[in-house]
C-alpha cells in the first residue's frame, strides 16, 4: 500500500483550491453584473420590469442552490445540449449570486433618503444621472459590508458544485480520501482551507461595517 504524507494530501488540496477560487471569482463578478441589471429592473418605473426582477429573485432565493445546479447540469442535457460541469457550475452560481446581490443592493439604494431623489430631480437630472451621481455613490458605501459578507456565501456555495463533478476543493477532498482512507485528516484540511479563504473576508466585512457606521460620516 502506498503511503501518503500530509504534504501529499495538502498539495493536492491546494491545487484544487485554485478552482474554488476561480469559480468564486467568476460567480461573484458575473453575479455582480447580472445583479446590477436586476437592481435597475427592480427600481425601474416600469411595472413589467419590476415584476420580472421580483419573480427572478423570488425563484432563485426560494429554491436550493443544489437544485439549481442539477437543473443547469441535467436539465439542459434533456434538450440535447451537452453541458460540461464547469459551465453548469458557473452558470448556476452566477444566476444564484445575482439574485442575492441584486436584492442586497436594492435595499441599499432604498436606504438613501427620498429627499436626495427629490433634490436631484428638482435640479433637472434624469433618472440615470440621479443614480450615477447622487444615489449610487451614497448607496455603495452602505453596500460594501453586506456585499463582502455575501462573497463568503459564494465561496461556500462553490462546494456544492462537487456533486455535479466539478473538481474544486470539496471534490478533491473526496478523491483524496478515497485514495488515502484518511477522511478526518483530509476533510479537516479541506475545512481549514475554506476557513483561510472565508475568514479574512468575514473579518474585513466586520471592520468595514464598523468603519462606515461608527463614524457615520459620509466622506
Amino acid at each position, binding site marked *: 500500500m502506498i503511503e501518503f504524507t500530509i504534504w501529499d494530501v495538502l498539495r493536492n488540496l491546494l491545487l484544487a483550491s485554485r478552482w474554488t477560487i476561480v469559480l468564486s471569482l467568476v460567480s461573484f463578478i458575473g453575479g455582480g453584473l447580472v445583479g446590477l441589471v436586476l437592481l435597475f429592473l427592480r427600481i425601474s418605473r416600469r411595472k413589467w420590469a419590476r415584476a420580472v426582477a421580483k419573480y427572478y429573485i423570488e425563484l432563485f432565493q426560494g429554491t436550493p442552490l443544489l437544485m439549481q445546479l442539477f437543473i443547469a447540469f441535467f436539465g439542459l442535457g434533456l434538450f440535447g445540449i451537452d453541458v460540461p460541469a464547469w459551465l453548469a457550475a458557473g452558470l448556476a452560481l452566477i444566476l444564484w449570486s445575482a439574485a442575492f446581490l441584486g436584492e442586497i443592493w436594492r435595499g441599499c439604494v432604498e436606504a438613501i433618503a427620498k429627499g436626495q431623489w*427629490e*433634490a436631484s*430631480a428638482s*435640479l433637472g437630472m*434624469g433618472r440615470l444621472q440621479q443614480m450615477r*451621481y447622487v444615489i449610487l455613490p451614497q448607496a455603495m458605501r452602505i453596500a460594501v459590508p453586506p456585499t463582502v459578507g455575501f462573497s463568503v456565501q459564494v465561496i461556500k456555495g462553490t462546494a456544492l458544485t462537487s456533486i455535479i463533478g466539478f473538481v474544486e476543493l470539496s471534490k478533491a477532498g473526496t478523491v483524496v480520501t478515497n485514495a488515502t482512507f484518511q477522511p478526518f485528516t483530509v476533510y479537516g484540511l479541506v475545512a481549514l482551507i475554506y476557513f483561510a479563504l472565508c475568514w479574512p473576508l468575514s473579518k474585513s466585512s466586520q471592520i468595514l461595517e464598523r468603519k462606515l457606521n461608527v463614524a457615520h460620516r*459620509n*466622506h
Partner: protein
Amino acid sequence: MSLIEITDVRKSFGDNEVLKGIDLDVEPGEVIAIIGKSGSGKSTLLRCINGLETISDGSISVGGAQLLDDEAHLKALRLKVGMIFQQFNLFPHLTVGGNVMLSQMVVKKTPKPAAEAMARKMLERVGLDHKFDAYPDELSGGQQQRVAIARALAMQPIALLCDEITSALDPELVAEVLAVVRELAAEGMTLLMVTHEMKFARDVCSRVVFMHQGRVHEIGPPEEVFANPRTPELKQFLGVH
C-alpha cells in the same frame, strides 16, 4: 401672460383629493407666501409646480414650459424653476462646491471651470464662499440651507419654490436664511414660498395665499389678508377674533 400659470389643478392621493381645483397666476418678480394649516395642500401644490407630484387634472406652466409627465418636459420645466426643501437635501458625499457644481455640469453640460466660477459666485451671494471645500455635515443647518439656495440659483432659474425652508432650523438660524431670501426678493426673483413665518410674509411678500381644504380660500396683498381676514377659517388660523 403670467410667469407661472396654475389652472384648475386637481390632485388626489387614492380617494383623498388634496387639491380641489387651484387657480393661481404669478407675475414675474412677485413674492407669494402660501399659508394654511397642515394638510391644506400647500406643500403638495408647491411640489406639483416642478413635477415632484403628478397632477390628476388641470395644467401648470412656468415661463412657457408645460408640466407634462415625461422626462424631457420635466427637465425643461425644472430648468426654469428651482426648489428648496425643508430638510435641505444637500448631497452628503460632495463638498459644498461639488453640490453647487454638480447639476450645472451634469444637466447643463457646463465645463468645470465655468461651473466652479458660477458656484463661487452663488456661494458668495449667500455668504458662504469660504466654505467651498467643506462637507455639508460640517455646516450648521442655516448654512446648509443657504448652500441649498446657492445650488438652486446656480441653475439660473426664473422662479424659486421654497417649501417651509426655515421649519427645520433652530430659531437663531432662521434669520440668516430669511435674510438671503429677502435679498433675492429685492433683486426681483419670483418666489413662491410655503411658510409659517407670518412676519416675514407680511414684510416681504406681494401676495399671500391662504389655503384651506385643498382650495385657495383667500388671496390678496399681505396688509389686507393679515389685517382684514374675511373668512372665519383665516381668522381662526391667524388667531384673530
